[in-house]
């Protein structure tokens, strides 16, 4: 096995019980059998054919076109049939994909992307710059209802098809995050003809250049994907060329995690996503399955404290909460060592992430002192602090769709440890829609809202004061309601800075301000674990938003 850089070690394939797998791999080299592969096809000769059954624990998308809305479940599946202009390799570097090359003007206000000239959509039509233009216009059209892609294209004024192979982006301001943004599946290139069919039809089966194409979608059951035999556009870090090995992918929706793992054990499926911590622990001790641990980029998974209203408008109370809460033991036991405690607002895969453990040490004494100082010095019969007749009560709406059971249990532990300092945490489990409703009506003091985006620009979306007022699309991302002019200016500068060092300095300064405000309690990376059957080889997570790619994958037996 090649020595993988640190980032790749986290992201790419992590054979379970590594030594055993290595041994097996060594043996199998002789027998031709293969186990525990990496991104390269080092452990056996790929075999063509077969149907991969993928069991997804994520919500079934409402629309298979990730331009519409734009959430992670869409990204997971869209990665199989849609491709982006650029990708990101294991080292975090931007690499060519549908675009062979690109060039930014000096002032950063125009970009020209040169497309590969040999790429065809799954319907056989060639990829041209007009499709790039149509894609961007589609995302920017309010009628499409794009959220994630729309925000990422905030500084793009328009796209012009200079020639069949050259697309020129015009910017309203320099955007240091443009390539990172364009690497995301929510901005993947779709066929102009496909988009022209109208939203409904395009939702059923978007037309892209990916190694597979949508063949059918039985709602609440599965999406059938078939191999795109015209395929010719693997990203620069792929292991082979030409069409995919797999004939088809049966993309099933299996919301129950225990069922998912049981199905993997029974050989009914070859890949499961959203593998739960206990499942991972069980799989590790069984040693049969290969794990892909691919934390999502963007923000870390963290609790945000609503500084926009009492009691968290008082920094002392925020710090007291953070000092009172003990999550380390819980993360250890609930996640079985599969998740590492984070002290950063950004994901560990973000090279520009900044950590400061010292801000988050649990110290009940200090918490109590801070609360006394803040005027919450009395306690009622239940041990909850009281000030001016108000109880120190915190509303904590929890989205049962987004928080896995282990995380919900962790929140219960947060509730229990906070109670020792005299906080009353009221956890309300809610479905996604009601949860959004609670956020928009400001009925929360503590909330966990993961956000996935490639690059540190996610900080601007999450912590710039502009993000407190809901955008026309309805989303407001600054749930900490942090309103700090100095931070705003740091984030704005960083986003336009085209100098790497300056960018790093600015983002570090911004993160220090964010963490120092005690509005954030980082927990761990956004977990993203896949378990693979031993018969599946060559699958990997790609470097953009850590979605799986089955282009190089093949099934033995």
């Amino acid at each position, binding site marked *: 096995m090649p020595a993988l850089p640190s980032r790749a070690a986290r992201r790419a394939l992590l054979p379970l019980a590594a030594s055993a797998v290595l041994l097996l791999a060594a043996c199998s080299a002789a027998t031709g059998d293969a186990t525990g592969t990496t991104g390269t096809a080092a452990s056996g000769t790929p075999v063509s054919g077969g149907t991969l059954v993928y069991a997804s624990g994520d919500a079934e998308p409402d629309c298979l076109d990730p331009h519409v809305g734009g959430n992670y479940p869409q990204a997971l599946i869209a990665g199989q049939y849609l491709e982006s202009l650029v990708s990101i390799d294991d080292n975090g570097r931007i690499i060519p994909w549908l675009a062979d090359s690109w060039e930014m003007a000096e002032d950063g206000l125009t970009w020209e992307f040169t497309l590969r000239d040999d790429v065809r959509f799954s319907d056989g039509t060639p990829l041209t710059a007009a499709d790039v233009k149509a894609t961007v216009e589609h995302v920017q059209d309010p009628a499409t209802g794009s959220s994630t892609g729309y925000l990422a294209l905030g500084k793009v004024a328009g796209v012009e098809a200079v020639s069949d192979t050259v697309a020129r982006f015009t910017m309203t301001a320099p955007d240091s995050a443009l390539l990172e943004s364009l690497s995301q599946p929510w901005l993947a290139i779709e066929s102009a003809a496909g988009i022209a069919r109208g939203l409904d039809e395009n939702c059923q089966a978007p037309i892209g250049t990916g190694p597979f194409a949508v063949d059918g979608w039985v709602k609440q059951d599965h999406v059938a994907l078939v191999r795109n035999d015209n395929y010719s556009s693997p990203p620069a870090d792929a292991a082979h060329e030409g069409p995919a090995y797999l004939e088809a992918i049966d993309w099933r929706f299996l919301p*129950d*995690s*225990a069922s998912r*793992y*049981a199905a993997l054990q029974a050989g009914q499926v070859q890949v499961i996503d959203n593998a*739960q911590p*206990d*499942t991972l*622990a*069980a799989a590790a001790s069984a040693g049969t399955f290969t794990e892909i641990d691919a934390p999502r980029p963007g923000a870390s998974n963290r609790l945000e404290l609503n500084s926009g209203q009492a009691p968290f408008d008082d920094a002392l109370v925020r710090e007291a909460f953070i000092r009172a809460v003990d999550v380390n*033991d*819980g993360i*250890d*036991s*609930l996640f079985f060592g599969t998740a590492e405690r984070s002290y950063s607002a950004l994901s560990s895969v973000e090279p520009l992430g900044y950590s400061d453990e010292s801000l988050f040490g649990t110290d009940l004494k200090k918490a109590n002192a801070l609360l006394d100082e803040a005027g919450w010095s009395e306690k009622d019969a239940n041990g909850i602090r009281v000030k001016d007749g108000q109880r120190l009560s915190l509303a904590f709406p929890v989205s*049962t769709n987004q928080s896995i*059971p*282990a995380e*919900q*249990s962790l929140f*219960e*532990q947060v*509730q*229990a*440890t906070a109670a020792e300092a005299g906080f009353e945490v009221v*956890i309300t*489990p809610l479905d996604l829609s009601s949860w959004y409703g609670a956020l928009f009506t400001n009925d929360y003091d503590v909330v966990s809202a993961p956000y996935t985006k490639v690059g540190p620009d996610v900080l601007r979306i999450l912590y710039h004061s502009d993000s407190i007022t809901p955008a026309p699309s309805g989303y407001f991302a600054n749930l900490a309601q942090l309103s700090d002019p100095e931070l705003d200016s740091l984030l704005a500068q960083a986003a336009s800075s085209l100098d790497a060092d300056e960018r790093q300095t600015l983002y570090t300064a911004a993160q220090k301000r964010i963490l120092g405000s005690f509005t954030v309690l980082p927990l761990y990376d956004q977990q993203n674990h896949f378990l693979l059957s031993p018969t599946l080889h060559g699958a990997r997570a790609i470097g953009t938003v850590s979605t799986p790619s089955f282009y190089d994958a093949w099934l033995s037996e």
Partner: protein
Amino acid sequence: MSELELRTVAVGARPRVATVRIGTVLAVAFALYLLLACLVPDAVAPQDPNQIAPRDAFSPPSPAHWFGTDESGRDVYSRVVFGTANSLLIGVAATASGLTLGLALAVLAAFGGRVFDFTVNRTIEVLFAFPGLLLALLVIVIAGPGPVTATLAVGLSTAPGYARILRGQLLAVRRSGYVEAARVLGHRPRRILGRHILPNALAPLLVLATLGIGQAIVWASALSFLGLGALPPTAEWGAMLSAGRPYLATAWWLTVFPGLMIVLTAVASTVLGRALTRVRAREGATQ
């Protein structure tokens, strides 16, 4: 026919062998235990049900933790004990509301004249076309999930069954020989209603309630399991089972014990209901 009616049908079950009697004794003992767990959980449970100990998470059953510990290191047995009140309360309240509604419908049908009888009968028929949990789910769609909704939903789902049994009971009593005999003696309708019909027709209420509570607890816990009733931080059996299910492969005790409590409660409720029926039969009551 409803599940409850079925249970009532089975009530006539003849005592076959001595084990049934032993069963009754065990059921009474279990019911007493549940009562204690409801009223003085502190006396029954060894620990605080909400005391977390992450380092002790997922301990299998042991002398220190009879039912093991859960994902946060809480004592499962203590949580089961403290959950009794929640679970039973839902069952009892659902049964009470179902019986009340059923009784109102039955009285309306039996004494409201032909028009009411026809209307109520059609209503019951229509409600039966929402079998099992369907009616409960409909209520939840309207009122949103939560323990109170779940209770009312289960109550409403059981009401048509109760209504049909009680209506039949009222009519049977009204047509019975002793009511005719009272009419022949020239007694007034109100006196006949008060002295004969109501006391005899409503005598099986206790049996119905006993049998119904078990069913209501199963249904309510099914709703909790589906995430539509009591929600996980609450120590309710269905919710505990639901919360423990992700860990089935590694920590079976999180699902087995709350489930066992539900099963035992339902069995005990059936056994007690049958025993009560036998007692009533022995006392010479009809039906």
